[in-house]
Structure formats: structure tokens, C-alpha cells
């Protein structure tokens, strides 16, 4: 019986992999390379997880699947919106439905038509889950209980801690080392307040721990200093008649001088998730019964907690290990009963870990000036790659002579030292206008002071530039001819842009969407894409439409590595256990390759070709 086993390693960087293989440190990947082959793998415009994996799934460029970035903009409001899925509600009496914005035909759709079974674990942009023949557990795209990518909560006995935009802060008052507080749940659309689940905290100083008691499961949960707790199942009463349950885990950062506790985003609970996260619907819970509770949110790693310094690097590493371990258990359980067809499991951790630990590879990284450099962490990424290699070795045990075995990554990873304020550049060059009397730095996110009646172009997301086109944008001003002149102006002005502080070229090129995309969803794409050099990216203020002061800024966040640069510099890796065409393979080639190994012809829209023929 024919098997294809594909292991996805998100953000697995070829330069690190190649060096480690040369040193003989990745024996399983090396064995694969010797058996079949290895190549760098061309990624998508832009080099981002949802875009790239959607191209893997459908075999088309993003113009054929409609995912161009994590974010897109609503042309009616100019506001950024989540690009991966949408909530649609027929009327206010019925529940909203989630609609996947990744369109096109996946190769597992075609396999299902031919009765070939698939087991697909955590592939991005399959939420709600695809109705595949077999099993699917959704990945990136599944929200937390508040409907976002993940909102954690920080509890502190200090009253002067303010919440960053990506978190909630709860101030706890301790009385005889006890406190009554709550876990924050979904927002109530009517009252605009948060639903809460009551918990009681008792500090046990002699044992450096706290005990959390509640109506949840378990009713008594211990959290030890510097450690992660087990899962707590909580229930929110979201109406008089309705409850929603979720799971949360804690990290106790310190007891003295101030009490500090971190709570993860509240993940969907598998028994009764708010929306289906697997196909069949019950599958997510069957899996939990076998391997234990697991993170269900698409973004499982709590990088925000570390970015905001709500716990330290050690705690983040521990948390990443939990995620890795539970994913391994999932993979091993499913491979153990896998008989034929297509198997896929994505490991997101290499990406999330490298984003946060990249700075320790570069003592001169600006982030270290603020957060300190610790040489102990210099090899964390390599150490993690050893574990990835072990995962590959484990999976290879399930491959027989007829199995096509694939290991791939969607993009690589690079340094992120400097950020460009794209909107500020557009402002300084006359493409973006601010309201009379305001200047860059005056307003916040969401294009606060932008004068749309005079604006020709605006930037959001991770390097997307949109034109303000008449008839398309709410206050569009550009006619077709003017749009063309604006396009040409932005391309020639931004290409080769030099960061004068460092005398380095920050922008390698700017491409028009027609140059890199084609297909039915081309009209949804950003008009222009900015391709950055290594070490650069859009600034932190750009994705949500900020116009801050100055062009370039040092990246001072712990999120110190990134990959949203020129895709030519951000390739992934591809290993197969059979000889394959190693001349510029790209993600779109995988769908035809996998289909062909089952004797199924590739779909009409699939652009790549079988790498084995």
C-alpha cells in the first residue's frame, strides 16, 4: 500500500541545516540526503507561514489561493483585518460561521476524490477544517477563546503595570497570601466587558508554589515557582443559558518582592470547542483522549509572554518543549496506525523558537542592548534542530520501501536588526498625506491621522503597499493613469533604499503584484510588495498602519529573528528519500509530486511539476 509521509518544520533555515549536516550533527536528515536528495526550496511572495503553506496545499501561487499575508485591509475602512478566516453571520439570531479564506483546490481534495486517505496534523490555513477523506486537525488560523491569535494575561500584585496591546493585565491584591481573582474569557459583544472565570490563589511560600482553586478541572491546581502548571479547564458563562469552556496553563514567575503570574491564552477545549477544529469534528477530542490535553490554538508557542517579559527565556524554552513533545505524541500515535495514503504533521516550534532566540547568535544585535546578552543561549536553535532531526528519525521508522518520505520547511529564518517605517517613507516622499497640523509620530495605529483625500499609497501587513484607487478604496483618489504613475514612483523611489546610519541597502526591490501573482484572487493582493535585505524588515509600527517618526529603527524586541524579507533570501529546505530534481524546486512543486506518487493527475490550477519525474 502506497504511503507518502511529509514532515513540516516551520522556518527551518537552510544555512543552519547545511552547516550542521557538514559537521555531521543531523544524522537522520543526512541519511535522507544520501538516500534521495536535499535542496533549498523556493518559497512564496511573501515568505510567511500562511502564504507559503497555502501554496504547498494548493500547488498555486497566492493569486490562486487568496492568502497574501497574515493581514489584509478592508478597502471600505482602511482597517487591517485577519486574512486567514472570516466570520460570517446571516442574522443576529444565529451563530456566526467561520469561513476559510484560503481558497483553491488542495491536493488532499484531489486525493479524497480518488478515495486516498489523508491524516493531516496542524497544516496552516485549514480552519475551519477541510472535509478531507481521513482526518485533519487544524493549525495556524485557529484562534484562542477571545477570537484572536492569542491574548495572554499577566497577574501582578503591583498596581503600576500596564497592559501592552497584545495582553491583559490583572492586578491582584493579596490578603494573608490569598487572593480572589479570575481568568479572562471571551468579550461580551453587548456589554463590551470580558467574561470571567473565578479562581482563588493561595501562596505557599515554604514550598515556593501557589495553589489555584476553582470550579474548574482540576479543582485544585499547583503552580511551582518558575514552572508551568498543568492545564486548567475553565468554563465561562457567556449568557444566562450558555457556557463556553477552554483550557489555560500558568507560569509562576515570582513570589517576591511582587507576586507575578502568567496565564496562557485560553485555548479551545477539545470536548466542546466553540467551533470545529478537526475533521471529523470529534477527532480532536479522540486524540486528546489518547495523548492528553494539547494546545489547540494555531499559535501554540507563547512568544508574546516572552516578548513582553512576562516570563524569561528559560520558561519559554520549557513551553516550546511542551508543544514539541505533544506534537511528537500526536505524530507517533497517528503514524502508529497509519496504513496507507498521505500523512502530514507540522512542527511550528523551530520557527517560533528562532524568532525569539536569534539575538543570541549575534552579540551585536540591538535587542541585546536592552535585554542583555546571554551566551548560554547562543546555540539554542542548533540544539532545537537536533531535536527536529530526532523527530525526523522517529517518523522515518514508519516508512517502508514504497514510502515517499519528505521533510520540508516553508521559509527560512534571518536576523531582524532594523525596521523600516514604510508609511513614514511614503509620507516623506509625497505618497501618503497626514491631516493638516499633524506630523509623523502624532497618531497611533490604524492610519489615525492619515488624510485619505490626499493619500496615494499606504502600507500595512509585512511589506504590503496598497494604492488608494478611485472606486476601490472608500476615499480612493487615483485614476488608472495616476495609479500607474504612483506604482512607478514607489518602485523607483524605494528600490535600493539605503539605511544611512549603517550605509547598507535595506530594500532590494519592489515588485508589482502582476509580476509575481496570477489567478482568480489577484485583485485581492497588495498592489506592491517590498523585498527587504537580510537584517531588515518592516518596523513594528507598520503592520497595523502606524506613521511614526523617522525612517529606520533598531529592533529592540526579543522577537529578533524574522524571515519576511526578499523571498530569494528566505528559502526553505527540502529533503526526500528518493532522487529528485534539485534544480530550483519550489513549494508549488510538492502538490504535483505527491499526487503523482499516488497516480493522481495534478489539478488544473496547479503550477508546479513532479520533482520525481
Amino acid at each position: 500500500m502506497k504511503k507518502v509521509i511529509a514532515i513540516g518544520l516551520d522556518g527551518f533555515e537552510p544555512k543552519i541545516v547545511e552547516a550542521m549536516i557538514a559537521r555531521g550533527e543531523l544524522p537522520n536528515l543526512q541519511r535522507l540526503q544520501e538516500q534521495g536528495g536535499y535542496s533549498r526550496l523556493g518559497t512564496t511572495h511573501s515568505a510567511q507561514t500562511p502564504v507559503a503553506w497555502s501554496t504547498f496545499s494548493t500547488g498555486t501561487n497566492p493569486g490562486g489561493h487568496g492568502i497574501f499575508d497574515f493581514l489584509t485591509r478592508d478597502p471600505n475602512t482602511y482597517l487591517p483585518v485577519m486574512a486567514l478566516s472570516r466570520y460570517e453571520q446571516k442574522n443576529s439570531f444565529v451563530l456566526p460561521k467561520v469561513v476559510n479564506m484560503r481558497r483553491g483546490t488542495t491536493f488532499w481534495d484531489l486525493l479524497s476524490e480518488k478515495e486516498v486517505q489523508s491524516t493531516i496534523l496542524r497544516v496552516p490555513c485549514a480552519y475551519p477544517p477541510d472535509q478531507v477523506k481521513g482526518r485533519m486537525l487544524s493549525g495556524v488560523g485557529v484562534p484562542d477563546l477571545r477570537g484572536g491569535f492569542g491574548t495572554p494575561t499577566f497577574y501582578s500584585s503591583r498596581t503600576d503595570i500596564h497592559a501592552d496591546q497584545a495582553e491583559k493585565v490583572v492586578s491582584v491584591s493579596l490578603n494573608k497570601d490569598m487572593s480572589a481573582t479570575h481568568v479572562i474569557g471571551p468579550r461580551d459583544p453587548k456589554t463590551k466587558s470580558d467574561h470571567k472565570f473565578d479562581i482563588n490563589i493561595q501562596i505557599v511560600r515554604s514550598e515556593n508554589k501557589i495553589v489555584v482553586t476553582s470550579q474548574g478541572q482540576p479543582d485544585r491546581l499547583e503552580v511551582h515557582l518558575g514552572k508551568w502548571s498543568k492545564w486548567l479547564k475553565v468554563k465561562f458563562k457567556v449568557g444566562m443559558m450558555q457556557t463556553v469552556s477552554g483550557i489555560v496553563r500558568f507560569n509562576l514567575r515570582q513570589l517576591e518582592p511582587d507576586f507575578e503570574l502568567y496565564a496562557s491564552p485560553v485555548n479551545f477545549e477539545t470536548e466542546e470547542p466553540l467551533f470545529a477544529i478537526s475533521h471529523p469534528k470529534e477527532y480532536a477530542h479522540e486524540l486528546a483522549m489518547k495523548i492528553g490535553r494539547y494546545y489547540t490554538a494555531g499559535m501554540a508557542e507563547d512568544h508574546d509572554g516572552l516578548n513582553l517579559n512576562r516570563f524569561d527565556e528559560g520558561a519559554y524554552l520549557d513551553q516550546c518543549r511542551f508543544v514539541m513533545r505533544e506534537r511528537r505524541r500526536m505524530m507517533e500515535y497517528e503514524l502508529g496506525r497509519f496504513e496507507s495514503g498521505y500523512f502530514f504533521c507540522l512542527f511550528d516550534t523551530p520557527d517560533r523558537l528562532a524568532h525569539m532566540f536569534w539575538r543570541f547568535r549575534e552579540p551585536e544585535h540591538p535587542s541585546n542592548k536592552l535585554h542583555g546578552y546571554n551566551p548560554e543561549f547562543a546555540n539554542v536553535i542548533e540544539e532545537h534542530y537536533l531535536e527536529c532531526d530526532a523527530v525526523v528519525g522517529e517518523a522515518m521508522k514508519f516508512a517502508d520501501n514504497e514510502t515517499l518520505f519528505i521533510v520540508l520547511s516553508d521559509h527560512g529564518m534571518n536576523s531582524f536588526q532594523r525596521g523600516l517605517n514604510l508609511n513614514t517613507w511614503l509620507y516623506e516622499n509625497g505618497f501618503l498625506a497626514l491631516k493638516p497640523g499633524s506630523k509623523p509620530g502624532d497618531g497611533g495605529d490604524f492610519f489615525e491621522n492619515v488624510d485619505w483625500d490626499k493619500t496615494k499609497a499606504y502600507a500595512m501587513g509585512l511589506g504590503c503597499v496598497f494604492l488608494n484607487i478611485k472606486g476601490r478604496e472608500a476615499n480612493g483618489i487615483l485614476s488608472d493613469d495616476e495609479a500607474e504613475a504612483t506604482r512607478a514612483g514607489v518602485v523607483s523611489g524605494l528600490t535600493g533604499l539605503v539605511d544611512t546610519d549603517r550605509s547598507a541597502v535595506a530594500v532590494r526591490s519592489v515588485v508589482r503584484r502582476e509580476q509575481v501573482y496570477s489567478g482568480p484572487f489577484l485583485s485581492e493582493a497588495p498592489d506592491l510588495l517590498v523585498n527587504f535585505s537580510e537584517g531588515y524588515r518592516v518596523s513594528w509600527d507598520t503592520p497595523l498602519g502606524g506613521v511614526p517618526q523617522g525612517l529606520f529603527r533598531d529592533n529592540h524586541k526579543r522577537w529578533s529573528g524574522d524571515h519576511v524579507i526578499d523571498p530569494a533570501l528566505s528559502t526553505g529546505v527540502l529533503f526526500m528519500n528518493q532522487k529528485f530534481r534539485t534544480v530550483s524546486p519550489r513549494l508549488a512543486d510538492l502538490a504535483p509530486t505527491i499526487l503523482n506518487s499516488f497516480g493522481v493527475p495534478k489539478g488544473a490550477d496547479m503550477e508546479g511539476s513532479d520533482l520525481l519525474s
Partner: protein
Amino acid sequence: MNVLVLNFSGAEPVTLFADERLENLRRLMDMGCFGELNSSGEWNVLARQENHTLTLMEYFQQADKLCVDTSDPVTLREKLSVGDWDYLQYSAASFPAENWSADDYLRLDNDLGEALQELDDDTAITVLGKNCFVLVSAINPISGEHKGGSTSDIAPTLAQLAGYPLPSATEGKSWVDGMELNNTSGLTADEQEILRDRLSGLGYV
């Protein structure tokens, strides 16, 4: 404002209001008001005038509204999907008159769920059981359990929610008489905060 009345006269409040599996009904209970009713008069009688009993449906007909009265589930489905009605009352004849089984309640909730799919926001929905009700309308200011109401209050309350003055000699009393009705456009929550919430955790913002 359209008016939809679904009458399941055999459904007991003890089960109707307590069974957690009735998801659609519970959502409606959360959105509007519900309760038991003192049995006095008939729910569809709006007023008893000299020599004449004015029903709610007649009152709407006098105002040239498109009215439908049916007990046939096929007709109900058709009317709901086409939407050519202002007032629609349905008496569920396919359900037993009393002694409902657990399955009957689930079937009610399922039928209700199907009906809800077809509605406009601008609809007042009433589900009636045995001496009990659930009432939802975006402009209805009453929420939660509503105690002390009577069967005969349903018609005048619906007439007012639909935007009509009360005729003389109404038999019951409208619960919303003299109250300020909700402004339906006031429900949109602070967009920016929700947006931040949605996008936080991405690592990119």
C-alpha cells in the same frame, strides 16, 4: 419590524427552559426575555371590542400587512425561505398536544434553528409553549426572565414592538408600553479594541 410566532402548545416550561441541549432556544433566551405565563385568555387575541374579538393577525391585516397563518411545516419552510410575509404565525400541528418526549424538544429546537437561518435582523420572534414564552427583538428593552406576565399580554406586546399603537380595549397589557425601545444601531462594539484583540498574539503587531 416583522413578527414571527411559533406556537408549540404542548411544550412544558420545566423542560423548555432547563434542557441544555436546546441550543437555539437558549441562545434566544439569552438575547431576549422568557418566562411562564398566567393563563388568561388566548395569546392571539389583541382586544375584545363590542361584539368583536380582534386578533393580532386581523390587526396587522387592517394595516395591509401580508399575514400568514399555518400549521403545515412545509408551508412554514416555504414562507420563511421566500420571505413574502410581515406577520407569520405557525401552530406546530406535527407535535403532540401534550406529554412531550425528550425527542420532541430536540425536534422543536432543530425546527427553530432552521427557521432562524432565514430571518432578517428586523424580526420579532416569539416561541410559545404551554403557558410560557420566549420573545426576542432587537428593540425589546426587556431581558432575562420576565415574571408575572399573562397569555393575553403577548399580542399587545408584539403589536407595540412591531411599531403599532395599541387599539382600545386590549385584553392584556403590553410589557413595553411607555418604555423606551432599544436603538438597534447602538450594538456595534468598539471596533479598534476588537481588532487589536483579534490581531494580538500574532507576533507581528
